[in-house]
């Protein structure tokens, strides 16, 4: 019998015996829809040229990735210090070049410390609309700039920014499959497991304080949790077979996962301490990879109940199972968008996988990546604008991010190892 379970075992084996194939790297660039962006200029002042350029680079990238701004070049703008209000001459100059908002950052190195004085002005009135001084050690410079960026995004759009978000992923850079966390732009990566075993399918808790994952740490594939604040880690399941693909409910109180304890893989739920085990699916076929809708009322998952792996939806109590995907003979790894309006998944197309997006009512199916290589394990940014995924397009497996409309592909990992299974943190 065709079995997703066997395929998963095979994938695990492939993960263990990771391969490398050379493939040409292709970046996508398509035109975005006509969303009105705010023309913004960024000026970084200070005496330390290297520091200035580092701050500028991080901030400009962050603001661009927020997709709220058009960065306007402002080479001719000269500023002394950080004024409380923009003078008429400066305002005139900015308005004539179409700038609606100006960010000024004064950065100073003070021994081991960095001081960043960030200000945001509205050019129409010349008023200062946000000001904050940041102080921190040199090694958290990027983090400080990300904070400033998120503040600017929030002041200008009312939405929470994603510059301080992080991505957990699996990498074999230390030999075995261990979990790592990096900033959303691919920097500041650090290992969070170190058990020299296989650790896969990590997922953030909705409050960002914990990560659940599947590990062979104690010899058997079970679901584990690590608390990022205390570094404490513990096992949630202890069934002697396979317990895989854990997923947190939006309220953080329940974890859905797939288990082989009934012969074939079925979806169960348990509380965050591994108690209160409840069987959710009673389906002839393998049911894996649950993902919750943001309301917690629905779960989407992969099942081969119809002969080939497809995406299904059901109420999170297991009732009213409906098939969502009808195109293609292999669709898996669903990820519900944070606003609930889209579901991303891996769709097989001509032998390799692509990232597809569909509405929860089955309409508007789109393939947003086009190879080469295979694209798998999609996960949404908390603002719902980006998707991170693992791709073999560069030969090795690496983590990428792409705009949900298929534009702005960016590679995030570049460590010469295989990097898989990314999951984007909440903001």
């Amino acid at each position, binding site marked *: 019998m065709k079995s997703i379970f066997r395929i998963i075992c095979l994938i695990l084996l492939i993960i263990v015996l990771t391969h490398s194939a050379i493939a040409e790297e292709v970046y996508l660039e398509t035109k975005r829809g006509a969303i009105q962006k705010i023309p913004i200029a960024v000026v970084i002042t200070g005496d330390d040229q290297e520091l200035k350029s580092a701050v500028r680079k991080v901030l400009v990238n962050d603001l661009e990735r927020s997709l709220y701004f058009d960065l306007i070049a402002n080479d001719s703008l000269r500023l002394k210090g950080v004024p409380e209000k923009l003078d008429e001459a400066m305002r005139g100059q900015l308005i004539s070049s179409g700038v609606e908002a100006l960010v000024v950052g004064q950065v100073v190195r003070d021994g081991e410390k960095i001081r960043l004085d960030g200000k945001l002005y509205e050019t129409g009135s010349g008023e200062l609309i946000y000001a904050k001084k940041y102080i921190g050690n040199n090694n958290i410079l990027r983090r400080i700039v990300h904070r400033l960026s998120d503040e600017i995004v929030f002041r200008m759009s009312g939405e929470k920014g994603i510059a301080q978000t992080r991505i957990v992923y699996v990498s074999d850079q230390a030999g075995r499959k261990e979990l790592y966390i990096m900033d959303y732009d691919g920097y500041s990566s650090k290992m969070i497991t170190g058990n020299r075993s296989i650790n896969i399918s990590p997922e953030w808790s909705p409050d960002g304080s914990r990560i659940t994952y599947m590990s062979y740490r104690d010899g058997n594939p079970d679901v584990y949790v690590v608390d990022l604040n205390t570094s404490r880690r513990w096992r949630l399941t202890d069934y002697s077979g396979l317990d895989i693909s854990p997923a947190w409910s939006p309220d953080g109180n329940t974890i859905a996962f797939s288990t082989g304890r009934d012969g074939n893989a079925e979806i169960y739920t348990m509380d965050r301490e591994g108690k209160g085990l409840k069987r959710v699916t*009673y*389906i002839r076929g393998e049911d894996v990879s649950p993902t919750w809708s943001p309301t917690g009322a629905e779960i989407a998952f992969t099942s081969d109940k119809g002969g080939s792996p497809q995406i299904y939806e059901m109420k999170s109590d297991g009732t009213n199972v409906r098939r969502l995907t009808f195109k293609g003979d292999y669709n898996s790894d669903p990820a519900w968008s944070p606003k609930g309006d889209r579901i991303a998944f891996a769709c097989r197309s001509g032998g390799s996988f692509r990232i597809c997006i569909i509405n929860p009512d089955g309409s508007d199916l789109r393939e947003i990546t086009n190879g080469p290589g295979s694209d798998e394990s999609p996960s949404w940014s908390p603002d719902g604008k980006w998707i991170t995924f693992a791709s073999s397009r560069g030969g090795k497996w690496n983590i990428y991010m792409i705009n949900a409309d298929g534009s702005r592909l960016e590679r995030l990992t570049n460590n010469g190892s295989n990097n898989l299974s990314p999951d984007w943190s909440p903001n």
Partner: protein
Amino acid sequence: MIKRLLSPLLIVSTIITISGCAMQSEFVDLENEVNRMKVILLQAQREVSELQKSQQPPQDDHIAVEIKEQFAKMDSQNTGSIDMLQKNQADFENRFTQLATDVQVIQGSVEENTHRMAELTENSDDHDAAIQEMSRRLDNLEAGQPPVHSPVVTPSGGAAASTPSELYNQSYKDYMSGNYDLAIEGFYNYLRQSPTGNLAPNALYWIGECYYSKGDYSKSVTVFESVTIDYPKSDKIVSAFLKMGYGYEKLKNNDMAKLYFKKVVEQFPYSPEASLAKVRLTDIK
């Protein structure tokens, strides 16, 4: 045109559903048969071991040899039949696995056909609505009134939707986003516009789900009951019965809850909902 298209589809789908049911019953028969063979095998094994245990220490060499010969004979006979039973069991298990795969493939075809039919019927709803609108405008013209264009629906829930399927989809989106009040209004608007529409049972079912998600279990039970009364042939009926059970359980009316869980188990024994209902029946005091 669409109706003409629908009837062959309906026939094909019915055949597949019926053959699916046939396969399912054959599948169950096979499962029973395999279990029966397992029992026979176990019995045979138990008999052999009992015979061996009951073997007394020989008092006389001649008798002992005779007994041994007899046992050896019986043993070889039993071994032969056990071998045969094991082979039969393996054959049955192979066929069982094959049938399970066949059932899944048929299940897939049923899902795909149902989906195609749903797409077609959704279009036909929109066409019906468009025809109604055109004839209304024609009537107006014949009566000498100026042609006033009005949208097919004037929704407050599901704003800016203009065809029944758009209204339905917008309401479904509202449900998914947790905008339950908007979704309820939108689905009721759909039902007002297309009371006999093909998505009407689903719309009513989702209204029940919205009330349930809002924690208004009393209303959800009433709406789910309407689904079972008004649309007894809908594929949502099993879930509706089960959700009535859940609703009554939330309302602390365990007797009614049990009644509906039993209904699901008895009327739809092979559904996933029946398995969920069985769990509730075991847990409810």
